[in-house]
């Protein structure tokens, strides 16, 4: 018997009720879960950085550079899960070469490029230019060459030039905030605009994606900051951490409220898809939605962070809390993406049946591949932190 028939028989045994033939197998797998996840981390980390820069929340200073570099290293990999998900990855560039204006994905290519080059790259460049010029003179060998090349062999570090850098950097950040909103709102839009799918099709989707992005990005920077300080044997700046936690708390609350609103809307409107979705939520998505995303990823962090706003235990205890909470939040947001991407494909658009999701460990679309795309950004981040250590920069006040 031929392979694909064998496969079909196997898959059919996982189907419940009636599904259309093209719904049996999930086309969007774990890698497509990673794509909004990683993009969200970028947008969130950048917004945390801009809190310091534009909104002048000086206390966040220790995380400014880390947040930018984190955003940059995750941005470099953001499209890789998509590319490795393709049947023909080597043709991926064609989306940029022959874009069609009616293709949401093709336009994303340009939104991505804009954000990477015009926002992240420029902001980091202007922020580090003076330091790179100085470091180039202090170091030797390959590192010296890297600094020279990165600063485009410029040498002008007069106060006037530096002031100009600062000004342009500020403008770039101001452009960057709406761009970050656009970037991640756009990812939500890609899902929200699929009107055939009642689990995705809601105008709230871009907003929900945006806020969950901020939540995950802030949590990630918090974690990176703590781990980095541990590695460098530096004292943690507790005031800074408390402030980040405060923002995490607020945004988590908004995110929770928005998602609740979305569900309330869905429950009240109760369109014909409602019963199918109801069964989905309490069946195949029960653990990932209520337990992982809801309880562990949202409620517990909200309660803990909320308590911390009134009652502050000893720094030692807070440190531990600040280590664990970001992990919970990051996991919660991962499952939020999971519930959207995988959940949206588990039920039949006839509303009469369900299919199931199965991924193997290995292979281009397996869990290992997904793990690879989650680890590589950290390696890039480690490299960037080695090359452009924010703690060795000359103190500047972004005023």
């Amino acid at each position, binding site marked *: *018997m*031929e392979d694909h*028939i064998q496969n079909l*028989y196997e898959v*059919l*045994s996982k189907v419940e*009720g*009636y599904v259309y033939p093209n719904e049996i197998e999930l086309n969007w797998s774990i890698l497509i879960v990673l794509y909004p996840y990683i993009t969200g981390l970028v947008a969130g980390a950048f917004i945390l950085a801009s809190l310091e820069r534009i909104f002048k929340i000086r206390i966040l200073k220790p995380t400014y550079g880390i947040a930018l570099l984190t955003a940059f290293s995750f941005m470099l990999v953001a499209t890789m899960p998509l590319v490795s998900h393709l049947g023909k990855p080597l043709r991926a*560039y*064609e989306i*940029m*070469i*022959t874009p*069609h204006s009616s293709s949401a994905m093709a336009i994303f290519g340009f939104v991505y490029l804009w954000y990477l*080059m015009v926002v992240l790259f420029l902001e980091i*460049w202007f922020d580090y*230019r003076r330091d790179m010029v100085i470091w180039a003179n202090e170091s030797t060998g390959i590192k010296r060459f890297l600094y020279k090349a990165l*600063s*485009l*062999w*410029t040498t*002008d570090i007069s106060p*006037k*030039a530096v002031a*100009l*850098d600062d000004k*342009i950097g500020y403008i770039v950040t101001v452009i960057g905030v709406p761009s970050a909103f656009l970037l991640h709102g756009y990812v939500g839009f890609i899902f929200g605009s699929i009107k055939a799918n009642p689990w995705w099709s809601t105008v709230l989707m871009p907003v929900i994606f945006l806020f969950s992005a901020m939540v995950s990005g802030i949590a990630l920077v918090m974690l990176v900051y703590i781990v980095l300080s541990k590695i460098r044997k530096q004292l943690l700046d507790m005031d800074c951490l408390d402030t980040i936690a405060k923002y995490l708390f607020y945004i988590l609350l908004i995110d929770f409220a928005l998602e609740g609103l979305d569900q309330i809307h869905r429950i009240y409107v109760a369109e014909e898809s409602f019963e199918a979705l109801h069964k989905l939520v309490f069946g195949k998505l029960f653990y990932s939605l209520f337990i992982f995303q809801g309880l562990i990823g949202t409620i517990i962090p909200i309660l803990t962070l909320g308590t911390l706003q009134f009652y502050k235990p000893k720094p030692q205890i807070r440190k531990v809390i600040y280590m664990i909470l970001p992990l919970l939040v990051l996991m919660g947001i991962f499952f939020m993406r999971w519930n959207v991407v995988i959940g949206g494909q588990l039920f039949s658009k*006839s509303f*009469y*049946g369900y299919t199931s999701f199965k991924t193997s460990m290995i292979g281009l679309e397996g869990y290992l591949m997904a793990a690879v795309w989650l680890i590589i950004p950290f390696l890039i981040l480690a490299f960037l932190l080695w090359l452009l250590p924010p703690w060795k920069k000359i103190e500047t006040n972004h005023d």
Partner: protein
Amino acid sequence: MPQHIKRLIGVFAVFILFFLVLQQVLKPDSFGELGHFRAKAIYENSLRPMHYTVADSCTKCHKDIRIDKDLGFHIKLKCEVCHGPALAHSLYAGNFKDKELPDSLTLYKPGERKDCAICHELNAARIKIQFDTLNTTMVHQIDVLTHHPFDPKTKVPFKCIECHNPHQP
């Protein structure tokens, strides 16, 4: 304008120029001839191997089965629905009359209970039809777990095809 801003603008200009050149160079050659796609894609797809044949092609060699089937309830089912894609088989099996078929030409024979259940298993989502209608556009449903699961005396599990002829159920 300070020197470093000039250089930066230069770098961006080079980058954009490079992109525009790449766009011209990498554009697939038959792109846009017929629309917003590669015209050659149609030709390339026509070269892909076929798996299925036409419904009538089995009749040439399996006339008896064809006649059987057309007299029974499974008249509407094409042979390949149950036996799988059979283009290669219908082209080359003729060379193996009264001999063992090679592996590449054997077809699946769906004789297990689960095979028939794919279509006949009780399914709340499908419209149920009454016991004795002769309407062959919908599928009669049985509960595979309770419909003659095994021989009452020996307790040996039954296959569906021990009672129903798959070609003329």
